[in-house]
Every structure is written in C-alpha cells, then in structure tokens.
C-alpha cells in the first residue's frame, strides 16, 4: 500500500484550498489594477491542488522512512534546535551552542565523551572565528551576568 504520497497529496489539496479561500478574503484597495491581488494566488493554489490530486491518484513508490528510534532522534533534534533559537539571545552564544552542538554530535555518533568535546570545541572555536576573525559582535555569556 503506497501511503506517503497519498497523504502528502491530500495535505497539499487541503492547504491549497485553504490558500485559495484565504486569497478570496484579501482586501482590495482603491488602487485597482485589472488583475488585482487575488487572481495570481488563486491560480497558483489551483495548480497546486491539481498536483496534489495527481499525487493521490498516481503515487510514486513508498520512500524508506527511518525506523521509530531514528524518528525519535530527529524529533529531539528539532526540539533542541527550537529551544536553541530561543536561548541564543538571553544566554549568549557559548553555553547554548556547546550543549546543542554536543547533542547533535551525539545524535550522529553516540559516544558521550567525543560529543562533549565536539560541543565545547565547536562552541569556543566558532566564537573565536565569528568574533575575532569575521568581526561579528556575538554576546558570549549570559546577559544577566552583565546586569
């Protein structure tokens, strides 16, 4: 049973319809041109919907999805990256980077010692490169420390 393409095709059709519906709600201004701001998005949405239908009707072979454990590792990585995006400013570059680089390194090669060294090394190394060679002004340490 080929499911991935069908599911994705269905998602595409739904998103495309939502896109078209939302396009019809776009406010037009008095500065009207013959086409207006709605027509092109509606056209693009329709083409996308047709493509989605094609994917449902004529799906390709099922791709190889990773096993459950790897999927978990991927999910962890995504979460870690999102947290990292939010901590970069308040905690500075060095500490979050060391942790996140270490965790990512562990996901690829599960050896704790090597991952810790990679994390700390990358954090310090990149900080030096960015700040002293490329001249970006990254905050190194948590802002709280400087009041």
């Amino acid at each position, binding site marked *: 049973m080929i499911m991935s393409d069908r599911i994705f095709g269905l998602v595409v059709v739904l998103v495309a319809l939502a896109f078209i519906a939302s396009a019809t709600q776009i406010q037009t201004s008095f500065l009207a041109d013959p086409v207006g701001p709605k027509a092109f998005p509606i056209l693009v949405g329709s083409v996308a919907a047709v493509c989605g239908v094609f994917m449902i009707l004529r799906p390709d072979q099922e791709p190889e999805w990773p096993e459950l454990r790897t999927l978990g590792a*991927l999910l962890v990585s995504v979460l870690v990256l999102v947290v990292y995006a939010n901590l970069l400013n308040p905690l500075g570059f060095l500490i979050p980077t060391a942790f996140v680089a270490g965790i990512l390194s562990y996901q*690829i*090669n599960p050896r704790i010692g090597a991952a810790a060294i990679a994390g700390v090394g990358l954090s310090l190394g990149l900080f030096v490169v960015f700040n002293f060679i490329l001249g970006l002004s990254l905050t190194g340490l948590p802002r709280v420390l400087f009041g």
Partner: protein
Amino acid sequence: MADLFANLSLGFGIALSPFTLMLAVIGCFLGTIIGALPGLGPSNGVAILIPLTFTLGLDATAALVLMTSVYYGAMYGGRISSILLNIPGDEPALMTTLDGYPMAKNGQAGDALVISGVASFVGAFLATIGLMILAPMLSRVAYSFGPAEYFALYLLAFSTLGGISSNNQAKAALASCIGIGLAMIGLDNNSGMPRFTGGNLHLMDGIDFLVAIVGLFAIAEVFFFIESHGKDSALGVKLEKVTIPFRDLANSGWCMIRASGVGFIAGILPGAGASLGSFLAYMSEKAVAGKDGKFGTGVAKGVAAPEAGNNAAAGGALIPMLTLGVPGSGTTAVLLALLMTLNITPGPTLFTDRPDVVWGLIASLLIANIVLLLMNVPMVKIFVRILQVPPSVLIPGVTMVSFVGIYSLTGSYFDLVLMIGFGILGYICRKLDIPTVPIIMGILLGNAMENKLRDAMVLSGGDWTYLFSSAISTGLLIAAVLGFIAPMFLRRYITKPQRISD
C-alpha cells in the same frame, strides 16, 4: 571586439586589486573544502555563507567575487566527494560518480581526480569565454523584453525546472507552486495590502529567501545526517601517490571540449540548465564512445565528460541569471538571492549601469579558475584530508554556522524557527522525491512573476491575449508548454542513470 577588451581591462583592473585577489583565493579555498565535504554541495555552501558575507559589510563587487569564487570552488571540490565517496554534492555532480567512483575502486583515484580537475578547468574556462561573448549580446536582446515576455520567461523557467532531472512532473510543478505561494506572503506590491500574513507582524515583510534557502538546503541536510548517523560518508578508497596521467588527458582532450560545448549550451537554458548540462555531456560522450567505450566501468572519458559539462553549465547558467534575472540552477538561484540582498537587480540594465560589477565578476571568474586548477591538482591531498573530518563534528558545525548567519542577518528568533520549519519541509520533500530547487526559485521569482503579469494586464487593459502579442513571448510560452510535457514522454526512452551502489 574592441568593446570586449576595454570591458575586460576594466574588469581586471577591479579583480586584480590585492584585496579582491585575496578574496578570490580565500573563496576558492573555502569553496573547494565546502564542495568536497560530503553532503555539502555548492548550493548549501553558498547558502550558509551568504548571511555571513552580508554581515561582513563587503561592497557589492567584493561580495560577488567572494561568493562566485566559492561557487566555482565548490564545483571543483564536489568532484572529490563524488569520486572518493560516491556522494554527489548536488544533482549535476551525480554523473561524475558513475565513472569516477569505479575508477577510485580500481585504484585509480589519483588519476580520476587529476583528470576531473583538468576537465573542470577546461569546462569552466571555455564557459567563461562564452559568457564574455554571449552575455552582452543577450543583454541587448533582453532590452526588448516587456512584462509579457518576462512572464513567459518565468513560466518557461518553472516548467523546465523539473525536466529531465525530476522523476515526476506533478511533484516538480507542486514544488514551484509551494515556492510561489510562499512568495505571496507579505504586503502586496501594487495595493499595499497584506496577504496571507494571518495578522502576524513578522510576516508583513514576507519570508526572507535566505531563511528559506538555508533551511531547505543546510538544515534539511543536517536531518539527513542524523538519520543516517553519518554512516554513508566513510572513506572507503585509498588515495595513493597522485601523478599526472598525460595519456588519458591527451586522449580525452576532444571529449572535454565537446562536453564543454554541450554543457554550456544546456546551462544557458533558464530553469533546469545545469543538471541538464552534465547529463547531456555524459550521455552524448557515451553515445560517441559506443559500447567499446565501456562507460560506467571507470574510464577516463566518463569522468572528463560530465565534469567538463558540469562546470561549463555552471558558467552558462550565469548568463540567464545576469542578463535576465532567471537562474539556471540551484546554485545560481542562491547567487541571485545574494544579488538581491546586495540590492543589485540583475537584468539587461546591469551591463550598462554596473559594468564594474559584471566585468569585475567575469575577470575574477577567469582568475578563480586558474587559482582553482593550481590548487586542485597539486594540493588535492590536502582537500582529501578534510574529507576525514567526522560528520559528528562537521554537521553540528554547519548547523551553528547557519544559525549564527541567519541570526546576525535578521536578528529575530522567529526567522530561526522559520528556518527550522523549512528544514523539516526540505527533509519531507526530499524523502518524497519532491525537488527543492523549484521551491527556492518560486520564493525568489514568485513576486516578480506576478508583478510582470499584472503590469502586462495594466498595459493591455486586462486583455489576456496580450500575453501572445509578440513573437518572443509566444515562442517562450510554447517552449514552456513543450518543456513541461516533453519529459513525460521522453522519460520512457531516456532513463536517467541512478546512483550506483556498492
């Protein structure tokens, strides 16, 4: 002709300044490393470096010289991972693995690297000459392009993007639609009204294409490495002493020149040019050699042809990018993003308004090419050593560089999270065999395409037949339809060689 030399001397005047020259050498070196690293193709490499280049505050010419050196360097470097690891850095490099990897397994890794290095030089050099001659001519033609012609041209680019390099036209078209649809987010140019922002202030300016590019290329690659645990990138072949195989080089001389011609012409086509270039170069040389040529078993010509074609196509792809603003490959799309970030509008006026940029660029391409040949033949062993950087260090490094790049460019967490989102989208798309280059092209060109259509309708007062009013636009529209339909039928007769496995 006199014009050409005057322009070239202007260009060399800019490119030969010590600072620019230094940038070119640094760019070549970085580019070769980036290209050689498994999984980091030219598009990835250029994408993660753009935000950094921008924050360095280089002027337009300097930034362009640096990034095109990286681009050319990555094309050279890509062959190293293709040949030694059987991992193509990007779509066009796939053809090099077909004979390059078998050669490496037969113990001829050094020969394959030297032959492909020289072939890269021949291809890129001839293409740069072609670029110097053809680009000004095409830019004169491009002056006669009105909104209708541009709309048709964009349509042609999108419809040929899938082309031979994709396995499913519906998916290629869908990818273009995703990109164009994402480009619609933000304020409408004509009416100034917000579209698809959902009231989110961050989305008012639209989605920054650099965020999308870095997410779709670099972050998605990170997910792939986590999935495979970096297992694919172990160096399985040994590189002994590197000598110059003069006989093989002499034998494949004509083959390189022919392949360069084929690659260059394919590269000029907007849309799918570059991947078509190495494909056609390989297939045509395979046909010329016949059955006795033993293509696919590890022969010198099988490495020389796609590598010359690939690099010639990379040069050719710069022509539509510079003269028309329509890129011919993933990496030129990324370079277009760079130009747009630097506030340079590519198009015919670029050649008259900013000759310093164009000719400085062309001169530095010639210089970069020579630097690259010198770097890549004698120093190839140094780059091979870089391949031994374990993915468990490389990939976190790439992630952090991407984050810092985007963060220092936009300074917003929203963009960082958006970048992760694009990474997930890129991962799913590549799993489902949906090409990601059209998504990038859509985000880059979507607004321009809509604006041209609306301008055309303003000019004609809403008459749709205006799109067919000139021979150029009608021709382009017909080519667009044919370019979309033809691969569906051709696919039955021409099968794209898939990646070989051990």
